[in-house]
């Protein structure tokens, strides 16, 4: 397989192709014209062309990206499938793309989830379908670009490219309070990302060649440049931290998330949870920590961030416990899960970082599946309130079986993917921060409580509401779209070794580099005194 891929020059064109195909697809989808305002396009058939075209494009995208799984060689320390052309020379920025093991997994996750998200919007998006699918496609380019970018300016551009389609997806196809939610989402993320731009420009100027005027935004060049002074590093790290912490989201920057999740359409929630939240943690892994290791690994800074992460873990779980809205419950559980990722990254052991990466993937699969399921039942009953259900396991057995299974994976029952990630994070972070790891481990109890309680109130108990008695079960399309997620949940739970091995060198390099660079970081004279 690898030989075949290399023989067709796969690693030379794949990354720009992955970015270009969705954009072309978006043009194609938009070219179809639009249906009259307010028409039910699913019923009238106007949605058929955009949705099939978009799903086809996403399918091609996914199949192409799958080739990366084989073409990638974990033993090779250089960037995989590197692509580098001149872009804006006077600003010192080039169009540089490349992957390491971490980004590879994120790209695969993105293409898979986007394909499913497109399939999942099949009957849920009933108005302005062509705009919707075009936005989904543009969003894909933005997210993939963030994972691939090896130029900080390009990173920023892609970061913003991804923000805008999401704003519209929430704001146009969202629920009742969509305007509030989309505005909140936009303002939170925008404030963070503008500060990040300042930080990026500072880094680019600091890394330019002697006597050069134009900044140098190349990731490798910035990494190779002398480290910033402690004060500057702290400020730049702060700028990056705010941008990424909002995106993750870390406590206390998380309140946009429940609103955005609840109001977004199903695919929006799925993408938000499965991929966009990972961009924040990915930013920490790729930019904030390696570029400013002295600031990130400063004992006080590290302790503050780890404490926030652990607060997020427990807090998110506790707040989930009392949510009356199932979607909001899952949204708060995301806060808890992403806390694990932050704990793993900042605990900085190979196990915890690998675990954090696994949690990133697992959360994408499990929470993505949960949001799909919520969307499916919402399409049928038009409510997400837990109290509106009860006993529907008798009516929709397939739905129930899958919901229970996915919930178990989200709880982290061993044998599912959820366990592998959380276990590795806690195992690794116990080595460096035992007390925090033990506190974080209590969330396994609360997680079981909130999800099982919700599942019980939805699926079990007496079937006492008449409107629940005739809810149709999943259809074939929905089963088809859930099945890859279910397969991955079992596969990553039982045999995660292939994934772990692909990410291993990148994770080890990350830990090693941050440790050595943090040790070499210039020390503040005043602090030493």
């Amino acid at each position, binding site marked *: 397989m690898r030989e075949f891929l290399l023989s067709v020059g796969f690693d030379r064109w794949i990354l720009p192709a992955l970015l270009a195909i969705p954009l072309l697809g978006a043009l194609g989808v938009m070219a179809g014209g639009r249906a009259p305002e307010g028409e*039910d396009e699913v*019923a009238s058939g106007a949605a058929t062309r955009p949705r099939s075209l978009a799903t086809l494009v996403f399918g091609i995208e996914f199949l192409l990206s799958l080739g990366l799984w*084989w073409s990638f060689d974990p033993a090779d320390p250089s960037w995989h499938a590197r692509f580098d052309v001149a872009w804006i020379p006077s600003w010192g920025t080039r169009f540089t793309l490349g992957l390491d093991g971490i980004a590879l997994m994120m790209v695969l996750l993105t293409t898979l989830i986007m394909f499913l998200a497109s399939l999942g919007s099949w*009957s849920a998006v009933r108005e302005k379908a062509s705009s919707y699918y075009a936005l989904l496609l543009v969003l894909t380019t933005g997210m993939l670009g963030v994972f691939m970018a090896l130029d900080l300016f390009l990173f920023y551009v892609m970061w913003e490219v991804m923000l805008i389609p999401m704003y519209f997806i929430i704001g146009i196809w969202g629920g009742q*309070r969509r*305007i*509030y939610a989309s*505005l*909140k989402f936009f*303002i939170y993320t925008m404030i963070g990302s503008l500060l990040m731009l300042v930080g990026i420009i500072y880094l680019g100027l600091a890394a330019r060649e002697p006597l050069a005027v134009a900044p140098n935004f190349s990731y490798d060049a910035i990494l190779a440049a002398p480290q910033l002074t402690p004060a500057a590093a702290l400020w730049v790290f702060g700028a990056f931290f705010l941008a990424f912490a909002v995106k993750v989201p870390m406590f206390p920057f998380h*309140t946009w998330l*429940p609103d955005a999740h609840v109001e977004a359409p199903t695919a929006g929630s799925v993408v938000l949870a499965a991929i966009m939240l990972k961009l924040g943690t990915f930013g920490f892994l790729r930019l904030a920590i390696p570029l400013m290791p002295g600031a990130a690994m400063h004992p006080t800074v590290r302790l503050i961030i780890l404490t926030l992460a652990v607060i997020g873990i427990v*807090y998110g779980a*506790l*707040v989930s416990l*009392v949510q009356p809205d199932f979607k909001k419950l899952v949204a708060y559980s995301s806060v808890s899960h992403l806390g694990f990722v932050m704990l793993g990254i900042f605990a900085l052991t190979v*196990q915890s970082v*690998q*675990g954090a990466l696994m949690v990133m993937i697992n959360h994408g699969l499990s929470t993505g599946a949960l949001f799909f399921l919520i969307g499916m039942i919402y*399409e*049928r*009953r*038009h409510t997400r309130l837990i109290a509106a259900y009860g*006993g529907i396991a*008798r*009516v929709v*057995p*397939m739905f129930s079986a899958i919901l229970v299974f996915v919930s178990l994976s989200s709880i982290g*029952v*061993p*044998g599912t993917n959820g*366990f592998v990630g959380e*276990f*590795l994070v806690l*195992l690794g972070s*116990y080595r460096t921060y035992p007390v925090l790891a033990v506190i974080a*481990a*209590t969330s*396994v*109890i609360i997680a079981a*409580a909130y999800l*099982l309680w919700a599942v*019980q109130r939805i*699926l*079990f108990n007496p*079937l006492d509401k008449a*409107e629940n008695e005739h809810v*149709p*079960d*999943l259809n*074939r399309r*929905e089963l088809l779209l859930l099945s890859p997620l279910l397969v991955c949940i079992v*596969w990553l739970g039982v*045999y*995660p*070794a*292939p994934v*772990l*091995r692909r990410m*291993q060198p990148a994770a080890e390099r990350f830990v090693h580099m941050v440790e050595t660079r943090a040790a070499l970081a210039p020390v503040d004279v005043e602090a030493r005194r």
Partner: protein
Amino acid sequence: MMLLPHEAMLAASQLAAPAAHPLDGTVAGYVWLLPLLPLLGFLANGLLSVTSAAHFGPADPGAGHGPAHPSSPAPHAPSDHGAAGDDHHAVARHRHASLVSLIGPGVLVVAFGLALAIFFAMQGAGEMKAPFIQRYFSWMPVGDLNIDVAFQLDQLSMLMVLIITGVGMLILLFSVGYMRDDPGYPRYFAYLNLFVFFMLVLVLGSSYPLMFIGWEGVGLCSYLLIGFWFSEKANADAGKKAFIVNRIGDFGFLVAMFMMFANFGALDFTGVAAGASQLGLGSVLVTAICLFLFLGCAGKSAQIPLYVWLPDAMAGPTPVSALIHAATMVTAGVYLIARSNILFSLAPVACLVVVLIGALTAIFAASIGLKQWDIKKVLAYSTVSQLGYMFMGVGSGAYAAGMFHLMTHAFFKALLFLGSGSVIYAMHAAYHHTGSHDDAQDMRNMGGMRKYMPITWGLMWIATLAISGIPPFAGFFSKDEILGAVHARHAGSTLDGASLLGVPGGAIMMFCYVLGLAAAFMTAVYMTRMMLYTFHGPNRTGDRERDHLHEAPWIMTGPLVVLGALSAVGGWFNLPSFFPAGRVGALEHWLDPVVGDGALRFTNGAPVEVPASTEYLLVGIAIAIAVAGIALAFVRLKPATLVPKTDAPAEHGFERVLANKYFVDEIYDATIVEPVVATSRGLLWRGIDVGLIDGFTRLLIQSKDDDSAPGSSVQMGGLLTRAVGLVGSTLQSGRVGTYAWVLVVGMLFVLGAFTFR
């Protein structure tokens, strides 16, 4: 799954690890088949269950923009569903029932046969000091951590495999009759097969994480099976409670694993044992690991303070109670301690805690059992109490005794549960005939069942005598051995040398011995009480129902007979030296390679020597107490005066406290569950999240559809934005002159920044 070349090589090199072991090349190489068989059974039954229930929904479920209207005809009525229409009272044989009956118990029959074959291979292989470890593939290879999926076969896991597959096979056969008319028939067998799979993974796993898979997996199956009839809220509640309480224990297990890895760098049994052996006796680290492990045991094996889930777990079908909540899963904690015997033998303080908790649980649960009316609740508290005995055994270093009691308990408690199951089956069938909704499990509605179910009656008396400790039944030997071990170690052992909270270990051991005796007395009383109220005296079922009471079919009584035989002679597997009717200490000898070193460390390397006179005295006391308990029950309890449940008067005083289980559930609710929920809702969610953080956000943005702002604070919405907007809109007068002024003043500032920098 395609492997990269180096992955495949890595896997191959691990598989090819040479290990000269006496079991190489024997049938033991097929050990992977043991868990695989029930897993296949689960997949087959699960598929049957799902396919028979599946009705795909319409292609466009959202059509119509409204909730599915009741008047619009649904494609199918819920009652058509196979597994979907699970109703406790529904009687509809599943259309795949015969196939399921073949697969479900069938895979266990094969597995049991294989287990027997492996057992004989082990016997034939002669002395086997090292465990037989088979590696299959790498589960989590991360840095210096490498967790393999590998099975470890040694004498301890072999014993557990035989119990699980053997007793499991009998219980599944019983279930074929018991669950025959349940619409969820395939789902039931799928869950049970899955349970057996996880249980086998638990006992066969060669490392703590792998064991943890089984550990949580059986908890999951327990959750699913307790809530099998999920349409009743109580059942679903009980399942959830079991899972969550177990999770508290699992938290302990997890933390123990973290400590092991951080300090020993390994998580497999051999690696941890090697690492722990480097540490001294009673080091803080080992004690902490053992205590966290014991927290896990307390959850899984229902010890104080986490026992509360087990009585509620009786909401599941009765064979489930027999298999999971009596014979196998709940004993996993005992197995864990026996498996970690090296660790525990180094932590006498932790062992004292284990013994003390075991003894307290034994007497506490036994006292509650005295006043229960639900026949299964009596057995449930009895199980909790007996598990306490087992922990007394393994805690005091008498691993063989603890495992012995585990085995005999599996026999007689499974028999008791299945017997009670067949009584309930009869009661249920009778009530079903007449359409009555009386409680089929309440002993006050039974009485005189001896006449209708003579086989069950006889077998259950055997089990009762066994659990009460009457020789020569199985329970006598195992319980006596435990009590003897506790008594023997109150002096001259490491436990005696340690102290807990300032109390010397010897005193604690003696105290626990007394508690054990008292619990034995109560055991005899409540078991006899259960037998008297159920089988003796006049029948209280009801006049119309009485005619429908009859003995269960052969598929149910057959397994009872086998278990009855085992309960009667099970003690012969490990005869004490003073009872030389056969081979003395066979089980102890068998387990010696695994637990022998750990056990010896308790007595500082010397074998336990108890004077014959003391031994006879202890045995005499034990028998006397058991007989006294039974006699007391016969004298004091009058089944003839009992009235049916609906007419029963309320209890008073201490009886009421006992009947309400010391109000422990209520105390937990009031002190833990409700405060946590209230804090989460009031302080964390509404206070911090909506109030504080979103309050700040509302200074920035406001929207008319922001309903999270309660009441007057809506007017405060966007305060900051409004202030900025007011200034901005005043400046925006539209007069060019104003703009010019602003421009010039702004320019002054800009120039000023250059001038005065």
